[in-house]
Every structure is written in C-alpha cells, then in structure tokens.
C-alpha cells in the first residue's frame, strides 16, 4: 500500500519534470492552461497568479500533485475543453473493451498454456507454440487489419469501424460505460450494436496478447508438475485430469495474477493502434489525435492516467495474490 502510493507520487513527479522540460517558463505554462491561440498579457498574468506558476519548483510540484488528484490537468487545445472532461468521456469506452479483451486473453492463455505444459514437447505444444509465436511477433496493426478485412470486408459479418451504428441515438450517459448505460436504459438494439462493433477490437487485443499468458502459464505448469506435491497427488490414486484440476491448475495460476496486471498495460498500449484502425473513439484514439496535433497537455495527462490505472491494477493484483496463495496471506 505504502509502496503503491510512493510509486504514484513518483509517477506524477516524472510527468511533472517532463512538463517543465517542455514548458520551462511560467508564460508558456499559462498559455497551455488557457488553451487557444489568442491571449492578452493580463490574462496570462492572471493565470500565473491563480496557479502559482512563478512559485519555486517544489511548491509548484505540490500544486501539481493537488491538481492531479482533483483531476485538473489543463485545457485541450483542439477541443477547447478541460482535458479531464474528455478523458472522463473516453476512458470508460476504452476500459470497457480492454477489460473484456483481457478476460478473453487470460482465459485463452490459461487454456493453451496448460495444454502446452501438460503435453510438453508433443504435438499440442508445438501447434500452440507456432500459433502464439506468430500472433506475438505480428505487429498489432497487421493483426487488426487482417481481422478487419476477413470479418468486415470479406465475410461481411461484423462492422469494420465505429463504436456503434452512427445512425442510432446513443442512450443517456450515466456511468460512461456504453454497454452498461445501454443496459440501464433498456436500449437493447443499441446494446447489440455496441457488442457487434466491439468484437473485432476485442479479438485484436486478445490475440495480440495471449502469447505472453500462454508462455508464462506453460512454464508455470511445467514447474508445478515437477513438484513433489504433484507426485503425491498422483500417489493418492487420482487420474491425470483430477491431478491437473485439483493440484496443478490452482498452483500454476498464481503467477498469472501478477501477469494479468502487466498485460493490462500492454492492452491499453495496443488500444492506441487498434482504436485508430477500427476508428473506435476511446482514449487511444484521443491520444493518437493528440500526437498529430502535438497537444502536450493531453498527451501527458493521458500518460499519467494510464500510469495511475496500471498502478491500481497492480495493487488489485497484489490483493488477489494474497487471496489465492495462503503463503502470502499470513506473512
């Protein structure tokens, strides 16, 4: 817990340093806070005064820290609205499909990794290895393009882009998560459209990432199979399947918890490319737009938000870890 908080502050400090390297003068900083291109000197001075931009650096850092925890990042230069407002709109969209993708990816990885580990150095192991080596080494944009071509343009079973059918009216924003909002409003046609549009981005992320889970799961299964307690489990007279289900699986899953928090970061990064290809307007698409328009504040804020969510994911993983492994629980 203490470590997570220190890491969080360290993260903010790193981003703060980066901001100061790019915007070294109070004037430059103030312009970013106002947004837009036309400012009067009076306006700038007012902002400098208001945000304390001429104070010593450590005071500024404390202010920055407070601002970050209040969600106050500045103004987006393109949309002319606070960055936090945009992130609040885009983050749930990305989070929704990324979480679904991660669940799919982890299940796929656990299954293939266990199979590869149990039948190591035999045909199933080789087939799975060939499969994940290709998806792992394949650039995400190629994978996404191939999926888009196969299912949307060739087979025409799924829509090629957008979050939902643009001709349909989206339900009222309640939680920000489109699927949940549509469900609350009972707007099932829209819900269905959301799901259809989500399939390809979800598949792209899950396929791109499952290789790492498979690889760790395979190694972990092999390590567990080598342990004496597995031999003892066999000695009780259990069948291979029972030994796997009762003894091997539970123990080999332990490293997957930590790994899943890690893949969360990869998946978010993959979302930048995938959202651009599928024109899925979430946080990744926003980040891509910001890089094109060189919107520093938006880029750094997104980076910071992603970092914070990964730290939170790691923290959750640590708690889950203690739930699953009694050895950690009691120490």
């Amino acid at each position: 817990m203490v470590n997570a908080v220190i890491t969080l502050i360290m993260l903010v400090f790193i981003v703060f340093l980066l901001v100061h390297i790019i915007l070294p003068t109070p004037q430059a900083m103030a312009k970013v806070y106002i947004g837009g291109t036309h400012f009067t000197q009076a306006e700038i001075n007012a902002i400098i005064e208001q945000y304390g931009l001429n104070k010593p650096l450590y005071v500024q850092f404390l202010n920055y820290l407070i601002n970050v925890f209040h969600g106050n990042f500045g103004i987006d230069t393109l949309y002319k609205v606070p960055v936090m407002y945009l992130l609040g709109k885009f983050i749930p969209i990305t989070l929704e499909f990324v979480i679904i993708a991660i669940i799919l990816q982890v299940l796929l990885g656990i299954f293939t990794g266990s199979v590869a580990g149990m039948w190591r150095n035999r045909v199933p192991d080789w087939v799975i290895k060939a499969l994940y080596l290709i998806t792992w080494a394949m650039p995400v944009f190629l994978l996404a393009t191939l999926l888009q071509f196969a299912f949307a343009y060739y087979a025409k079973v799924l829509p090629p882009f957008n979050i939902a059918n643009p001709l349909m009216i989206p339900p009222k924003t309640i939680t920000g998560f489109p699927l949940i909002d549509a469900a609350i409003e009972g707007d099932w046609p829209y819900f269905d459209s959301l799901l259809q549009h989500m399939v390809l981005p979800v598949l792209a992320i899950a396929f791109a990432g499952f290789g790492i889970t498979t690889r760790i799961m395979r190694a972990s299964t092999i390590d567990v199979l080598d342990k004496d307690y597995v031999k003892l489990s066999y000695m009780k007279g259990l069948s291979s399947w029972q030994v796997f289900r009762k003894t091997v699986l539970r123990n080999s899953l332990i490293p997957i918890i930590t790994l899943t928090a890690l893949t969360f970061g990869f998946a978010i990064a993959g979302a930048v490319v995938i959202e651009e290809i599928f024109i899925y307007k979430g946080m990744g698409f926003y980040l891509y737009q910001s890089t094109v328009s060189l919107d520093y504040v938006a880029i750094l804020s997104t980076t910071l938000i992603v970092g914070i969510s990964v730290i939170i994911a790691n923290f959750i993983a640590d708690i889950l870890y203690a739930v699953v492994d009694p050895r950690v629980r009691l120490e």
Partner: protein
Amino acid sequence: MKAVDLLKKAIGIRKDVDSFSKRVPENVSIWYYVIHDPQALIGLIIIALFIVWSIVEGSLQIIGGYLKDPALGWILLPHNPLAPPNAALSLKPPSLSYLFGTNLEGEDILSRILYAAPKDATAAFLVVGLAILFGGLLGTVAGYFGGWLDEALMRITDAFLAIPGLILAIALSILIGPGYYSVLIALTIVWWPIYARLFRGQTLTIKYRGYVEVSRLFGESSLKIIFKHVFPNAIDPVVAYAALDFGTVILTYSTLAFLGIGVQPPYPEWGAMASNGLSFFPGVWWYTLFPSLTILLVVISFILLGDRLQDIISGRLTY
C-alpha cells in the same frame, strides 16, 4: 521461505533424478545447443542475415553520405528506394522486376524494405545496449549497496514500468521532437528500468556468494567487486532476455512509425510503409503486407532464439 531454502542447502538434499534429467551439462557451451536446435538455429540464421545486410547497407549509406553521393546507398538494391514520384509506376503489383510491387509514388517496395533495414537494426541494438548499460549499472549498484538507494531506485522503476512502453515512447518522442534519434532516446528511456530490475535481482543473489564475500574480506573496493564479480556474473540470464527484447524494440519502433512518429518521409520505414499502404488494403495488398511481414519475420526470429536461450539457461530444455 528463505530459511527453508538455507536449511535444505545446509542438509544437502540432492535429488539424483534431477541431476541428470534437468540440467544442461556445464562443459557444453550454450552455442553448441543453439546450433543443434532447429528452432534456435532458424532464428539465428535469419538474425545473422538481417545483421550482415544491415551492416553492409548501413555502411554504404554512411559512405554515400560522406562522398555526397547518395546513390551509393542503393547500389546493391534493384531500384532507387527514394526515386521521385512516378505516376506511371504507381501501385504496380508484384512482378519479376518489382518483386514486392510498387507503392503510390511508384517506388519499389522491396528496395525500400532493404534500404530501411539498417535503421531497424540500429534501433534494436542501440536501445537494448544502452538500456543494459544504464539499467545494469543502476540496478547493480542499488542491489549491491541496498538501503535507501535501492528503495528509491525500485520506486522510480516502478513508476516508469507503470506506463506502458508504447505510450511512454509516444509521449517522450513527441516531447523531444520529431525524428529518428528522438525515437531512439525515447525508447532508451522506456527500456532501462526493466534491465535495472533484472540486474538488481541478479546482484542480490550474487552478493552473498562465497567468492564475493571473500573479495570483501580481502578488502577489495566495492567498485572493483561490482565490475569484477557482480556485473559479469549477472549478465547471462540478461542476454537471454535481451535476445527476445530486440524483437520487442523493433515491434515498438515500427508501431511508432505506424503512428507517424520517427523517421520522417521520404526516408522509408517498415511501420510507416505498412501504415501508408493500409488505406489501399486489400485491393493493393502488397503495399501494406510485405513491410508488415518483414517486421513479423525479423521479430519472430528474435523470439525463436530468445525463447530457446531462456529454456537452455533455466534448464527447461529436455521438457
């Protein structure tokens, strides 16, 4: 847990089953295994071709630059990769003279792929090399001295590792400014923390080994111990990890180029070429497919080799 391990060591539990079923004999070098293993060998051959070609082509480009004769850079290529736009040659499908077809500007895609290779190779080896150097030094020192220094380094690396590599690289390269070198700097900043972690972990296990304790007893300086004993002994598992990592750097580098960050046009870059061709997919399939497949081939060979090296070092080879 640690006390138990120590106890087991003190009592000297030896499993005679394990001693010959699991371990790789120590007198055989790792490379002997690599060249006798089909998977690792395929990876090694493709990597070797990639490196040799990059050195040859890269030197020609550099010499051409000094002699103010850029044509020297494509003397070995079938066509000029930087030829001026030619509508007559635009988007030609693969043929005998244009094996991988041509792009919108009428340039030969194969020549452009080969011309861009040295930049990818340099990116991979420079970024991982610098990350090992910086990360290795910081990690070893932190692990060796421990205390608040170690604690601080761990929190800094945690903070860096919290940001997904691609996103941090995007942010940094935008901040530093456009261009090839800013991407290299950004990637190095992204890559060092994981190596700091690896070296720290290794150092912690080496620190208490007999020969280090003896050196300390004989009053050797910490600096000397770190350079003479700790750093060289920590490097083995790092090399196996790095072999895999070269591929990851190339993948990230191409993805950045795909997003329009990095090498600026008209110079070719694999990821950028794939990105340009995307809008013509699938009609003009060769435009995006060949650059993408090149990335796939190079990355997969690094993974093939690195995966096997890790198996060998961790003794999982016979399984």
